[in-house]
């Protein structure tokens, strides 16, 4: 079994678990490309078959969401208005990533600042209670 791992880097994908292959071919894995070992699960772009979903909610491609703030042409995201900010945090209080909300980078930065301010003033929770 030692010669399996010696010639190449042990692939993080579960392909290396098959001991029957005499010379360890990397292309045995059914999921993902037979290229260099990739870290992490499916990337946000494109829909890979979720052979190894990282964690979290749905991992399939979401339909092209537009940035809500861009649509409204918002110049300022007001930290005082919790009702605007609330949809962007999880129930547990964590801020949702862009790929979940479809927000553009610039507004996500502003949004984060606003959310953190609102959290500091107890308009939004830091962490949900049990």
């Amino acid at each position, binding site marked *: 079994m030692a010669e399996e791992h010696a010639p190449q880097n042990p692939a993080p994908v579960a392909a290396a678990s098959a001991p029957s292959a005499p010379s360890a071919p990397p292309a045995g894995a059914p999921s993902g490309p037979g290229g260099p070992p990739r870290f992490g699960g499916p990337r946000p772009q494109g829909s890979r078959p979720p052979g190894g979903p990282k964690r979290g909610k749905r991992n399939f491609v979401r339909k092209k969401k537009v940035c809500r703030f861009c649509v409204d042409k918002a110049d*300022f995201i007001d930290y005082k208005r919790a*009702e605007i900010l609330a949809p962007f945090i999880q129930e547990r209080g964590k801020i949702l990533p862009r790929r979940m909300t479809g927000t553009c980078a610039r507004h996500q930065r502003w949004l984060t600042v606003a959310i953190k301010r609102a959290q500091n003033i*107890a308009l939004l*929770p830091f962490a949900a*209670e049990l």
Partner: protein
Amino acid sequence: MEERQYDLIFILRPDTPEPDIDKVIATIEHAATEKGAKIEKTEKWGRKRMAYRVARLREGFYVYMVIRSSHGEVVKELERRLKVADPVIKYLTVRLDEELKRQEKLKKHRERRAARRPRKTAPAAGTPSAPAGGSEHAAATS
């Protein structure tokens, strides 16, 4: 030094009697004007449920003020007073002038760009940023 604008929010214990609330507000207002600051707005948002417990309380009485000053040290003094005031359980000062400047700049850019292009539809759509109430996001200090 150019004038700065600050948002100041503080929260008092919900069981504070009304005159005490006003006393705290008055203290802050005095302290600010003494240092040459202008109070643009004072709003009492009243009792609100807080997102987490502060000082073992679940509700608080929110007060919101907008202050303009050309002295930065005003903020320090106000916060000091808020810290020692007993009914005050939380406060937050936010400096807003840069933010508002940026907002103005963006608005102008957008208006200029919209005006430059001759639009097929009525060009009145080129000024969406006018504070026409409905847009929830564009309000700075509402």
